[in-house]
């Protein structure tokens, strides 16, 4: 650590306490980030295998096809069961072990305490426990590939009755999910307490950087959304292990054999409990990304965010509404028209705050002297990509249109536009933006741009054709990509385009990986505030020592005081005392727009 001389004095800790079982939020944040990036890459690799099968159904996979064994890919040809495992685990890993740990565990842990001027999280040991719960969950999920019958294969949604009667991998999946739920709950409690209690003097709620607000609302979604899934997971475990029939209806017949169970259960119950979490989970995936984009956009337009307050209120409203839209995933379960009307109405309403936030971010660009550095490129790409993701969701939220589109590739395209070119691009923006704070060095701009442009193009190459295929009625989860269906024939050639784009996207990530490690040693050394930003994390040394700040920071003004008229530089940091201004405590500060 280059700046350890700045740090508060503390006893030298062993390697294990310092880097492995650390209670320092920055180390834990980095542990989360690395773990999540590894899992993102692993989950992506599963998809690369699937894309081979979809582009070249039932043809042997060259070179590496033989490595997967006779149970999965005899002679290099993928079995449908293995395809299903890859699909279920791709979804599970990307959502619960990739994006959420990176967006919340990684960025939230590293950035939030720094941005609010706190020495650490409120409960450091709980923080460590939450990381290790995630790690155990990850190991469990990974191990499930090697149990008899393979990993979970009933989709990432694990719908019963299929999941109730699936092989053992499903049980392991449930145990893994329980670990991940515990991890998220501990993290959520910690984030909310930290943000409420450990804010620096003068940092009133309306002076929060938007990223802090985003994490605050996200933590509530995790806190209140996950327990119902936990209940559902326990029910499913009981069904699988204790012979109960919570999700098994009476008279179920599988492959001509009646299932030996008492019945009387409801498969729909699982769907309600699952989507009660999994819909807010979508906002868990997107809100931190919006927070990152807001930080990067304000910093690189050198302007205050346009409509900061309306963004904050939209965020709160969105968080609340996200709990009463879940059944729009279930329009074709046969629910009554009154129910579908209710859920389609709330779904239309929830699009309003998202549109407000996105519009505010786009209007923030207006009249700015924009710096097109790598973080900004990723953040700018987020705006239209998330826009496509959001707008393609509207037809799915309308019960009538959903009858046609449900379970087609259109859904996959829509969701991935939100999460892949949306959230993941924003997460990359965040990595490039805060890398100097974590390491004291900048990542290479050249490699960053080499990473950005092909990623941007290939992502659209992967996901745009999905929307077209879906409109043609091609179903998701077909292991031959629709080759056996007459109505899929006109759009079948798109499978190859998507697969080549996916493999291209994988190759492009090499630039990122090289950049990430190369810059650790060789990157350009930076000052504590290389982007000339205004929020409090940039007042800490880079990298921040244990305890973060040399002296207790204070907030004197709102978070985005860029280009203030009459100020000598184009940024007026939140943490520097200005002429004649005093830190306010206990009352809302004013932000200028």
């Amino acid at each position, binding site marked *: 650590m280059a700046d350890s001389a700045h740090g*508060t004095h*503390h006893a030298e800790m062993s390697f294990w306490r310092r880097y492995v079982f650390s209670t320092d939020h920055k180390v834990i944040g980095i542990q989360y980030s690395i773990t999540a990036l590894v899992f993102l890459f692993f989950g992506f690799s599963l998809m690369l295998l699937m894309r081979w099968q979809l582009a070249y159904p039932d043809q042997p996979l060259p070179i590496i096809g033989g490595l997967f064994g006779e149970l999965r890919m005899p002679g290099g040809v993928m079995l449908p069961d293995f395809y299903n495992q890859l699909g279920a685990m791709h979804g599970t890993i990307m959502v619960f072990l990739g994006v959420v740990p990176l967006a919340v565990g990684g960025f939230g842990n590293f950035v939030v305490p720094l941005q609010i001027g706190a*020495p*650490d999280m*409120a*409960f*450091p040991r*709980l923080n460590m426990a939450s990381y290790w719960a995630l790690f155990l969950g990850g190991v469990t999920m990974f191990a499930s590939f090697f149990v008899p019958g393979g990993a979970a294969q009933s989709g990432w949604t694990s719908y019963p009755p299929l999941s109730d009667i699936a092989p053992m991998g499903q049980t392991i999946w449930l145990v893994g999910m329980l670990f991940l739920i515990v991890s998220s*709950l501990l993290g*959520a*409690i*910690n984030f*909310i*307490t930290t943000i*409420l*209690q*450990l804010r620096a003097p003068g940092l009133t709620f309306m002076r929060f950087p938007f990223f802090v607000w985003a994490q605050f609302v996200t933590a509530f979604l995790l*806190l*209140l*959304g*996950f*327990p*119902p899934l*936990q*209940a*559902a997971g*326990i*029910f499913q475990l*009981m069904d699988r292990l*204790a*012979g*109960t*029939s*919570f999700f098994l209806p009476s008279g179920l017949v599988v492959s001509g054999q009646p299932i030996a*169970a*008492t019945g*009387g*259960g*409801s498969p729909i*119950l699982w769907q*309600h*409990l699952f989507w*009660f979490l999994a819909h807010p989970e979508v906002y868990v995936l997107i809100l931190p990304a919006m927070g990152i984009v807001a930080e990067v956009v304000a910093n690189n337009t050198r302007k205050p965010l346009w409509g900061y307050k309306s963004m904050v209120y939209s965020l709160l409203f969105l968080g609340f509404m996200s709990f009463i839209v879940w059944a729009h995933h279930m329009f074709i379960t046969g629910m009554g028209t009154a129910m579908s009307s209710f859920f389609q109405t709330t779904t239309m309403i929830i699009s309003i705050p998202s549109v407000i936030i996105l519009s505010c971010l786009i209007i923030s660009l207006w009249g700015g002297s924009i710096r097109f550095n790598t973080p900004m490129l990723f953040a700018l790409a987020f705006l239209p990509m998330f826009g496509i993701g959001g707008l393609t969701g509207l037809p799915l939220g309308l019960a009538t249109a959903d009858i046609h589109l449900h379970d087609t590739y259109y859904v996959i395209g829509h969701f991935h536009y939100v999460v892949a070119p949306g959230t993941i691009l924003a997460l990359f923006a965040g990595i490039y933006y805060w890398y100097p704070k974590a390491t004291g060095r900048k990542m290479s701009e050249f490699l960053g741009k080499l990473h950005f442009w092909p990623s941007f193009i290939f992502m659209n190459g992967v996901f745009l054709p999905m929307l077209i295929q879906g409109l043609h009625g091609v179903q998701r989860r077909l292991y031959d990509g629709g080759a056996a269906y007459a109505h899929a024939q006109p759009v079948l050639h798109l499978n190859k385009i998507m697969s080549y784009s996916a493999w291209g996207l994988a190759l492009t990530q090499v630039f990122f990986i090289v950049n990430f490690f190369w810059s650790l040693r060789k990157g350009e050394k930076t000052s504590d505030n290389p982007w000339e930003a205004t929020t409090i994390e940039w007042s800490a040394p880079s990298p921040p020592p*244990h*305890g973060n700040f040399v002296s207790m920071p204070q907030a004197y003004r709102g978070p985005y005081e860029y280009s203030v008229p009459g100020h000598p530089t184009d940024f007026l940091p939140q943490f520097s005392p200005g002429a004649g201004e005093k830190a306010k*405590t*206990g009352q809302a500060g004013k932000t200028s727009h």
Partner: protein
Amino acid sequence: MEIPYTVSERPDTGLNNVKIGIWLFLASEIMLFGALFASYILLRVGATKWPDGSSILSVPMAFTNTMVLISSSVTMVMAWASLMEKKLGRYRLFMGLTIVLGLAFLVIKFFEYRAKFHHGLHPSTSTFMALYFTLTGLHAAHVAGGIGINAYLWGPGLKLWERAPQQFTNRVETAGLFWHFVDLVWIFLFPVLYLL
């Protein structure tokens, strides 16, 4: 490096970190048991026939258990109040009673379960029995967890009292909030499963 407001209260929120933490945890617990009760309602509404709980389950045993848990909540408050009055002996007595009452609840529960198994009633017998075992089982796990925390605060955790009495009192208060919650869940479970 000190984390602020671990013991004292932050002036503008009026709370210390632990108090916020436990209330948030209880909020998530409400969502957990809320989902369990909601599932009970959904499954019961969808069932063609539903047994009368009191004809299968033992109301006297459950009533005794209700009294045991309510008493333990009272002794828990007394334990905390004794600490506020700095009477350590009384604290040990009341916390000890709380632990004993918690254990009594589990013992009665054990005999209840054993009687059910003896009569051939298992989780796989019917949806009602499945709900009974899952809901009371999860609740019993919470009771066991609460006993563990209380036992720690009665025994080894007491060392903190010498160094930081206020922090220790806060811990007992926090454990008490959890214990009252577990009690409250039972007060809902009892009529829902045994009486309705």
